[in-house]
């Protein structure tokens, strides 16, 4: 023990220092304002509900004023009845299952492809300069554009659907991961290296967790794109081998000039898209961001 320290740090000064430290900690610790859950719920649930009610009321008024013919604008109640019909005959479950299972499977395959792809683009400069721009470009190409080609290649089969879904979602997810990795503060990998993280350990303990927020944002967008592409594919490529999903149900309504069925299909597509985002992605993102102190208001 260095002798001069004993003089500098007498017993009482160590005590003082402990107290000073405790005081500083108490003063400096950031305070968190906890909003009660009911207030949070009412502020996040109430506005959209009011908006929804307003829209339905306006819809009803426009319909009642009869500026548009009945075959163009159905009454809200007619759409509701049309919806109840498929609930009553039970076909709604097979319709939802067909589309949602496809979207999930497609999204899962997209994750498996896009994750290593994103890692490669982010970490290997040659790969980045070779396919980075292509990947961003594909993101702005509407994946419906692939449907005609896919039909010619794969016929009216599930392969066509998955092909279109993948082209819609893979670029978003991969780009999200690339952005997530690019945004990692350079100090973190350095610290990782000083602490003994090399190669795979560095990817697992530093790189991937640090890139998680960007990756999740990419996944969220990837889900939206995969749902959108799926609907486009189902509407355009309808056939007996494909079964009846939400897209085909919409297409049928249109083919039979059944505007109420068309509306009910569009609303269902919207509800499923929003529902998955609210039930799956929003809570996930919240948890990840909150753990890092990146509040998501």
């Amino acid at each position, binding site marked *: 023990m260095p002798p001069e320290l004993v003089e500098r740090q007498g017993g009482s000064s160590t005590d003082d220092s402990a107290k000073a430290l405790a005081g500083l900690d108490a003063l*400096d610790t950031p305070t968190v304002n906890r909003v009660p859950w009911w207030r949070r719920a009412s502020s996040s649930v109430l506005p959209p509900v009011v908006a929804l009610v307003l829209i339905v009321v306006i819809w009803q008024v426009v319909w009642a004023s009869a500026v548009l013919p009945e075959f163009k604008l159905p009454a809200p109640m007619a759409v509701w009845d049309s919806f109840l019909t498929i609930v009553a005959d039970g076909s709604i479950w097979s319709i939802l299952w067909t589309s949602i299972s496809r979207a999930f499977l497609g999204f899962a395959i997209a994750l498996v492809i896009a994750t290593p792809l994103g890692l490669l683009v982010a970490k290997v400069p040659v790969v980045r300069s070779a396919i980075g721009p292509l990947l961003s470009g594909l993101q702005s190409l509407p994946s419906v554009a692939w449907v005609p080609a896919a039909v010619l290649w794969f016929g009216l089969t599930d392969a066509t659907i998955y092909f279109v879904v993948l082209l819609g979602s893979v670029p978003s997810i991969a780009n999200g991961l690339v952005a997530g990795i690019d945004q990692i503060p350079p100090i973190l990998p350095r610290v990782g290296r000083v*602490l003994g993280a090399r190669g795979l350990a560095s990817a697992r303990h530093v790189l991937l967790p640090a890139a998680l927020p960007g990756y999740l944002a990419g996944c969220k967008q990837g889900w939206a794109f995969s749902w959108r592409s799926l609907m486009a594919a189902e509407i355009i490529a309808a056939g007996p081998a494909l079964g009846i999903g939400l897209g085909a149900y919409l297409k049928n309504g249109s083919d039979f000039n059944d505007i109420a069925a068309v509306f009910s299909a569009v609303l269902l597509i919207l509800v499923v898209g929003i529902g998955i985002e609210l039930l799956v992605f929003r809570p996930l993102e919240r948890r990840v961001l909150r753990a890092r*102190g990146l509040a998501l208001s």
Partner: protein
Amino acid sequence: MTTSIESEIEHARRGRTAHTAVELSGVGKTFGTGTGAVTALRGIDLRVAHGEFLCLLGASGCGKSTLLNLLSGLEEPTTGTVSVNTARPSFMFQEAALMPWLTAARNVELPLQLAGQGRGARRERARELLELVRLDGVGDKRPHELSGGMRQRVSLARALAAATSTDGSAQGGAPGLLLMDEPFAALDAITRDVLQGELLRVWEATGTTVVFVTHDVREAVRLSQRVVLLSSRPGTVVREWSVDEHGPELHDEITGRLRQVITSHAA
């Protein structure tokens, strides 16, 4: 015959290194080549004894951080040799640089985890170290829930964990090497003052060797046993002072010398 000579040499080497934690001889570092080359360090000879607290003092851009990077193995010297005879050196930066997704305790555990220690031993060690930096009870908090000073102490605990993590047998703080790059520069004056005292206490309790970089003369004199003044561009050792052997005038003397070094760079 040869074996006995070899063993003699080995013996002599051990005798010397037993006291030397860090030895730099003729170390130079140049970044880049050709006309754009920057010589950050030149001809540095430096020895740091085990358990010593050394301050590297110098103006901005004189190569202090570069020197620490050489010691930590983050960079290789262009000339000369760097030898470090301690457990793996660990680093503390101006920012706490905690992993924002891990709790305080898991941050301290990270180097132990990377060294392959089991979960139980890891937890126990992290608890000890947090207690050492007087942060018992905040192990479950995330970095963003802590103040700057607390974060820097978690970072210190993590560095201490790293310094003693190389093998599982290193128990209860086998002396390591702590490299600190202006760790308190971003803190307010009051917190800095308290943390300087804390660092001395921790150093005393753990027996680690510390190489502490600062551009604050007062901090250097308060903390260290020996102050080494570096010149700028290229960084060379100008002078060193043993703090114990000098009286209260040391602060002014070092400040005067630092000022000379800086003035010599005026165009």
